[in-house]
């Protein structure tokens, strides 16, 4: 009788415990997915065309069309790819959490989730950082290298790029919190007489 009670207590403890955390994690992942997807889309569609009058021949004006696209800068290409991969990662994790609870690989499910989360955090941080410094260069120029700023000419391009960067940084902070939560999940092993209290 006592043993059965203890078993019930164990099951109750371990099944009750992750539930509030599970919803929080899912919500965070959803938010992070939206943030990184928004960053990818906004930067991916970032394009501005300007026509300048280059010369006047007689009465006809010769115009030059210049475009600013995100593909011109490798840092922005990396930014788009990194955020795209992060969105895919978040999507896969959301699917896995909602529909694939039974999927496991030799008991390493939590470890794999934690490792993948960490790798995604690193990826987003790299992409956001490179794009941030390229954007700063485009906005302020660099007098030492005689590089002029381009943001006064391509204002919409810079604005959209800035918006994508903000979204990506928000996604980065969310991913960091998610990663920390995944690692904490890994460290806590539910025991019946455990003295570790989960906050």
């Amino acid at each position, binding site marked *: 009788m006592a043993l059965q009670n203890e078993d019930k207590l164990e099951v109750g403890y371990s099944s009750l415990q992750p539930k509030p955390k599970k919803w929080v994690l899912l919500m965070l992942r959803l938010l992070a997915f939206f943030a990184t997807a928004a960053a990818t889309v906004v930067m991916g569609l970032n394009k501005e065309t300007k026509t300048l009058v280059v010369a006047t021949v007689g009465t006809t004006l010769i115009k030059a069309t*210049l475009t*600013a696209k995100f593909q*011109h*800068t*490798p*840092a922005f290409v*990396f930014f788009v790819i990194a955020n795209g991969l992060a969105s895919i990662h978040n999507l896969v994790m959301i699917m896995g959490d909602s529909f694939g609870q039974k999927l496991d690989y030799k008991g390493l499910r939590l470890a794999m989730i934690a490792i993948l989360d*960490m790798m995604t*955090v*690193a990826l987003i*941080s*790299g*992409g*956001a*950082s*490179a*794009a*941030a*410094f*390229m954007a*700063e*260069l*485009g906005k302020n120029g*660099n007098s*030492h*290298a*005689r*590089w*002029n700023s*381009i943001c006064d000419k391509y204002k919409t391009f810079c604005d959209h790029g800035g918006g994508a960067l903000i979204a990506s940084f928000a996604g980065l902070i969310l991913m*960091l919190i998610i*990663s*920390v939560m995944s*690692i904490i999940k890994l460290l806590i092993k539910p025991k019946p007489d455990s003295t570790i209290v989960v906050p």
Partner: protein
Amino acid sequence: MIKPKRLLSLLLRFIAFGTTLAAVILMATSHEKGTFFAVSYEAKYTDTPAFKYFVIANAIVTVYGFLVLFLPPGSPIWRLVLALDLVFIMLLISSISAAMAIAQVGKNGNPRAAWLPVCGQVAKFLQPSNRSFSCWFHCTDNLHYSAALLYLQSP
């Protein structure tokens, strides 16, 4: 004696500390002068905020790596070290990424923005005796060093 697992961990952390220290020193002391059509250039790491960020980030991680080397094995602070490892990995990756982005522009230029490549540009022109400043080449070395240490931070 020291357990082999602890010894390996110490060794990895020492290598990590060494590489970040090397990155900081190389970037901070690379400093080159050149003249280009009677205008003298001096290239230092303080020219670009990206390189300043790189130096500061690597300096922080060097200090952290140094302190962690002396942490006794049974101490409860290792849980904090686990969390801080993650934070510093992120900081390092972001600093490498930023410096590499700017170095790439410095090396290849960006013709659409009328940004001339800074490394080696003078060699193309007809100045006979001038050699352009090549400090931006140093950063690729630094970056390789720092990248190696990321994988070493996890144990």
